[in-house]
């Protein structure tokens, strides 16, 4: 059941990426290019998503528990540490090179562009390496 619900929610998320134009790396790169062909669309995507999520979370998190789990799994880490500086810096570098972040890259997989077919396996290797490194060096890894 949770598999099917998640499939529907993944589909909704992916349709959101398609409708918003974020499945096109060119649109993302043009947002990041202030001194060139600037396309502000990405700010509207994030704005729409953050407002809906902010309002929705306020309603949902008032409930004692989610529908299909015993408790809400919210991140427990507090305060700024190197994890939220170094990680995002590396991620942003790759994002600026390609125009892909993880969601749009996965959504683009079936469209089958050669660049995507190279990017996604490399991304999964990078994720796996980071997970192993986190486990190896016992860095705090909250859910």
């Amino acid at each position, binding site marked *: 059941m949770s598999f099917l619900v998640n499939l529907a929610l993944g589909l909704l998320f992916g349709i959101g990426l398609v409708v918003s134009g974020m499945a096109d790396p060119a649109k993302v790169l043009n947002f990041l290019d202030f001194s060139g062909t600037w396309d502000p669309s990405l700010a509207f995507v994030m704005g729409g998503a953050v*407002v809906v999520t902010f309002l929705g979370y306020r309603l949902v998190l008032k409930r004692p528990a989610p529908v299909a789990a015993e408790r809400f*799994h919210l991140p427990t880490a507090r305060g700024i540490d190197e994890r939220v500086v170094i990680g995002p810096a590396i991620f942003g570098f790759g994002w600026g090179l390609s125009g892909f972040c993880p969601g749009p890259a996965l959504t683009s997989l079936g469209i089958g562009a050669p660049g995507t077919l190279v990017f996604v396996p490399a991304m999964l290797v990078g*994720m796996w390496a980071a997970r192993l490194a986190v486990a190896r060096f016992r860095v705090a890894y909250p859910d």
Partner: protein
Amino acid sequence: MTEFTPWASLTGGALIGLSAVLLMAWEGRIAGISGIAGRLLPPWTDEATPSRLGFVIGLVAAPLAWFVATGSPVVQTVSSNLPLMAAAGLLVGFGSTWGNGCTSGHGVCGLARLSPRSVMATAVFMAAAVLTVLVVRHLM
């Protein structure tokens, strides 16, 4: 050159937000794609693997569903510089997992929770990406 699409982008963003809210309502998890995809890889530490697999299959199926529903294919321009895309993929995968989130986990869900860590992460990846595009497009 890409066309500025405020309404479509706002609508698409709202759908992404709706997905994030419903995922929290259903099983109480953050809709962060790097976390969902990264935890599909071993070691598996909880019993949410089938859920994550479902979410990723849905994400991947979205362009096909869109095409079937509307008859219009998803138009995109992806770099065909394959060594660059391989390097970028490694950086995105490693960095987003090391940083505990990407554009969705930090940039949408984290900002919506007013999390200081997510505000920091979002500011850093935005700045790094803007700087990278500036160097690649205008200074190289």
